[in-house]
C-alpha cells in the first residue's frame, strides 16, 4: 500500500473524531503570547472559528492520533473489528498541523483523542508527547483538550493535566450493562477512577497555589478548564432517567464542567445490532435542557423525571414545562414576591430573566408589560405566574394546558 499523505490521514482521522460532541474552548486560564513572543492566547470565552452544515461549531482541531484500536466498542467506527481504513499520525505531524492551522486563525487549539494502541499507557504517552511538544518546543499558548485514556498510569494523567487545559474521559454509555454489552473492554470503575484522579489532582493544584509562599513561583495549574465527558444517546436501550442519573453522579462526584450527550449517528461499516436510523436529535436536545436544569436551576434528577413518562423525557415540550405541568400545586408563583429558587422553576423564565426580575422588582411592582421586557415569551408564563395586573385563575389547573404548548399533532398539519 502506498504511503498515506498528510492530507489523506487528516481526512481519515478527522472523520473518525467527529462523533465527539465537545468542541468547547472556554473557561480556561487567561493568557497570551505578548511576553513570550510565541503563539497563542486564551481569553475566557472560546471562539468558534467556523460552522459546518450540521450547525456545529469548529473551534478546535479535533482529530485522533490514530484510529487503530484494540478495543471493540460496537458503537464506534474505530472498533477493532471495523473495516474502516486506518491511519496514524506521528506526534510531530499533529504538532505541525495544529500550528499551521492556528497561525492562519482557523482554530483555538487542539482536541486530541486516540484509539487505544498497544496499551493505555503507551497511547497516553503518545498524546502527551504532542501536548508537550506544542507547549515546550513551540511555546504554544492556545487551548489543548486531551482525551484521557481510562486506566492509564496516574503519573501520566498528572503530566497530561500540566499541558492540557481540559481533560476528558468518556463514559460512553450511561449504564454498566450497556457498557458490558457494547464496550466489553471498557470498565466503568476504571473510567470513574480516572475521573476521581483528575478531580483530586485539580484540588491539590488549587490548594498548592493558594498555600504557596510569596517568594516562590506559583505551582503549575492542573487542567484549568476542568474535565468533561460524553455519553452516547440512542445506541443502547438506556432510558433518559438512567442517563441523567449518571450525569448527576458525575457532576457531584468528579465536578465535571460538562457532560456532553451525543445522539448516536449511523456509522459506516457498523455493527449489526445498532440502530441505523436518523440520530435522535430532539432527544439529545431535551437531555441538554434537563442537564441545564440540574446545573443552573436547582433541579435534581428525580424531580426532572416527574415530568417524564416511563423514564423518558417528553419530546414535544421542554423538561421544565413537563415538570411544571405535573407539579401545578406549586403554581402560580408571584413574580413580585417569590424567592429566586421558585422563580427559576417557572417555565419560560431563564436564569438571566430571573436575575433581571429580582433587580427590577426592588423599585416597582412588576406587571406583564415589565415581564415582556425581560423574557421572550410572556405567553408561556401566563398559567404559572401572578403579576401586578395578572392572575391566571383557572388557567393553571386547566386540563388543556399541555395542548397549549405542545406542537399540534401530526394529522392536523397533514390536513392543511
Amino acid at each position: 500500500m502506498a504511503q498515506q499523505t498528510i492530507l489523506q490521514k487528516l481526512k481519515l482521522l478527522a472523520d473518525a473524531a467527529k462523533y465527539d460532541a465537545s468542541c468547547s474552548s472556554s473557561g480556561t486560564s487567561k493568557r497570551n503570547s505578548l511576553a513570550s513572543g510565541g503563539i497563542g492566547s486564551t481569553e475566557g470565552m472560546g471562539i468558534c472559528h467556523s460552522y459546518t452544515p450540521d450547525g456545529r461549531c469548529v473551534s478546535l482541531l479535533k482529530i485522533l492520533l490514530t484510529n487503530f484500536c484494540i478495543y471493540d466498542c460496537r458503537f464506534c467506527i474505530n472498533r477493532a473489528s471495523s473495516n474502516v481504513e486506518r491511519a496514524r499520525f506521528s506526534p510531530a505531524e499533529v504538532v505541525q498541523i495544529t500550528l499551521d492551522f492556528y497561525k492562519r486563525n482557523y482554530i483555538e487549539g487542539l482536541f486530541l483523542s486516540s484509539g487505544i494502541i498497544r496499551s493505555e499507557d503507551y497511547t497516553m504517552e503518545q498524546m502527551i508527547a504532542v501536548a508537550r511538544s506544542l507547549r515546550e518546543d513551540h511555546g504554544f499558548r492556545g487551548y489543548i483538550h486531551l482525551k484521557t485514556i481510562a486506566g492509564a498510569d496516574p503519573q501520566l494523567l498528572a503530566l497530561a493535566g500540566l499541558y492540557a487545559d481540559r481533560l476528558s474521559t468518556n463514559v460512553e454509555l450511561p449504564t454498566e450493562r450497556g457498557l458490558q454489552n457494547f464496550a466489553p473492554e471498557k470498565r466503568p470503575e476504571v473510567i470513574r477512577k480516572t475521573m476521581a484522579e483528575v478531580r483530586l489532582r485539580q484540588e491539590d493544584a488549587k490548594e498548592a497555589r493558594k498555600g504557596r509562599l510569596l517568594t516562590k513561583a506559583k505551582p503549575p495549574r492542573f487542567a484549568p478548564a476542568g474535565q468533561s465527558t460524553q455519553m452516547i444517546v440512542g445506541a443502547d436501550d438506556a432510558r433518559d432517567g438512567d442517563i441523567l442519573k449518571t450525569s448527576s453522579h458525575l457532576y457531584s462526584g468528579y465536578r465535571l464542567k460538562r457532560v456532553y450527550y451525543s445522539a448516536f449517528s449511523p456509522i459506516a461499516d457498523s455493527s449489526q445490532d445498532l440502530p441505523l436510523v436518523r440520530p435522535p436529535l430532539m432527544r439529545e436536545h431535551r437531555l441538554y435542557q434537563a442537564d441545564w436544569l440540574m446545573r443552573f436551576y436547582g433541579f435534581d434528577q428525580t424531580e426532572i423525571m416527574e415530568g417524564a413518562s416511563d423514564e423518558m423525557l417528553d419530546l414535544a415540550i421542554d423538561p421544565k414545562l413537563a415538570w411544571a405541568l405535573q407539579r401545578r400545586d406549586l403554581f402560580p408563583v408571584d413574580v413580585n414576591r417569590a424567592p429566586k429558587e421558585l422563580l427559576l422553576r417557572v417555565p419560560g423564565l431563564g436564569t438571566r430573566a430571573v436575575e433581571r426580575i429580582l433587580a427590577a422588582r426592588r423599585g416597582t411592582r412588576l406587571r406583564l408589560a415589565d415581564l415582556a421586557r425581560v423574557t421572550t415569551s410572556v405567553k408561556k408564563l401566563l398559567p404559572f405566574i401572578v403579576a401586578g395586573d395578572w392572575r391566571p385563575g383557572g388557567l393553571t389547573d386547566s386540563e388543556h394546558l399541555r395542548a397549549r404548548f405542545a406542537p399540534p399533532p401530526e394529522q392536523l398539519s397533514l390536513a392543511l
Partner: protein
Amino acid sequence: MTDLEPAAMTVVRLDKKGDFAEWRAAARHLLAQHIPPHQVDWRGPDNDMSLFGDQLGAAPIRQEKAEGRAPTISLPRELVDMADHIICHRSADVPARLYRLFWRVQADRYLLGRKTDDDVHWARKMVKNISRDIHKMHAFVRFRHLGVGDDGRENYAAWFEPEHLTLRLGAPFFQRRFSGMNWAIITPDARAIWDGQRLVMGEGGQRDDVPDHDVVEQQWRAYYGAIFNPARVKISAMRSEMPKKYWHNLPEAQDIASLLAGAEQRVAMMQAAEHQTPNKRTEKWQKNAQAALADVLGGAGDGLDAPENLEQLGRSLDQCRRCSLHCAATQAVRGEGPVDAALMMVGEQPGDQEDLAGRPFVGPAGQLLTEMMAQNGLTRSDIYMTNAVKHFKFQPRGKMRLHQRPTAGEIDKCRWWLDLERQMVRPKFIITLGATALRGVLGPKGKLADLRGQVIPLSDGAVLFPTIHPSYLLRLPDKEKAAEERAMFAADLRRAAQHLAAAGVG
C-alpha cells in the same frame, strides 16, 4: 438667544471615519463651550452633506476645528468605553447621537442606568452590534502565509471585510495571540500591521493586496469536510452563527454547497451497506485486550471466588456486585494496614474523599480519628483500618455527594468481605466505630447504645470494643456537648489501648 432667532450652527468636520480620538476631542471642545446637540452639524470625510442640511442656509456657519485645546470634562468611564465602540459604526448619525448622549449625561449622571431611555437603548444596541462585529472578525479572519523574513519571522496577511470600522478595536486581539509572527490585516477602510514590536494602523486596501491562496488551505478544507456529520444537517444553525456575508472570505465556505449536496447520499449509503465480516486483525487484538482485562480482574474471572490473601481480596473487591452500591461509587475501598495487626478498626463506609482516593479514613472524620488515636495511645500504622461497607453510598446534590447510611441489607451483604478480612488478619482486638460497623462485626444482635463501653468476646477469640463513629463528633453543633462526647470517645480509645498494652501488643 430667543426662539425667534435661529441658533448658530456649529459645523464639525471629522477627517477620519471611526476615529474615536478625533471625535472625542471635538466633543470635549463642544461640551466646554456649552454648545447643545441641536446646534452642532457633524460632517464626515465622505459626506459633506449635513444631516441638518435644510437648516444650514438659514444659520450662520461657524467653523470649528476638530482638534483644539480641550478643557477637561469628566465623563463616566462606561460611556467613554461605549462611545469608543459606537464610533466604529458606519451609520451616518453616529457622531451626532453620541454627542447628544454626552451632552445629556452632563446633567444626568445616572443616565446610562436608565435602560428604557431611547438614547441609552440605542447606544447599548450599537455597542452590541460592534462587539459582535469584532467577535466575528476574531473568528473569521483567515491569514495566508507570505514567506519567512530574513530575521526568521514568518509573515502572514489577511483580507477581511468587517461590517463596521472595527479593525482598530479588533486588532489588539491578534497582537496578543500572534505575537510571534508578523501579520497584516487589510480591510477596505484600514489596515493593521504587527511586526513583533509595534501594532500600526494604516490605510485601507484591496483584496489583491493579499495572495489568493495558501498551501495549508487544502488541508483546512479537507478537515472541514471530514468533521461535518452528514447525518445531522442543520443549515439554519450554521447560517445564524456564520452569516452568508462572511462566506466569500472563508476558504472552507466554498465547500458548503457540495457537502450539503452529498450529505443525504452518504447517509443512505451507510444505511444500505451490508454488514461486513470483522476484519482479520480483530481476533489478535481482542485476544490481547482480553488478556489485559483478565490481568485487571486479578485472574479470578467474575472476581467472586474467595480470595486467598489481602492483595487478591483488594482486586476482587473492585469487581464486587453483591449489592447495587458499586453502580455509583468510584471504587471499592479496601482495608489498609499490616496483615498481622493486633487491632482492627472498623468504620462505617468510605466517604467522598475515601471514595476518590481509594483509601480508608482520609476524609475529615478520618483525620480526626487519626489525630485522636495518636493522642490516646494508638498508632495508626500498626492498625488494620477498614469499613463495614466497602462502597460509598450517597445522594447527589448539585456539586456535592451527601452521605447516606447503608441499609441493614447492604451491611449484611458486605459482611462477606469483612469476615474474609477478619480471617486473614486475625486481629486480637476490634474497635467498631458506629452502629453500622457494630452490625458488620456482630450481626443484628445488639444496639450500640447498650453495648458501648463493654468488652465483648467474639467467637473467633477476638475482643470487641464498640464505640461511636468520629463523624458524629463533627456533626454536633453544640460546643459543650461536642467536648463531652469527644472526651468519651477518647476514653473509649484509651481503654482499648490499655487492653492492647496489657496483652503485650500495644
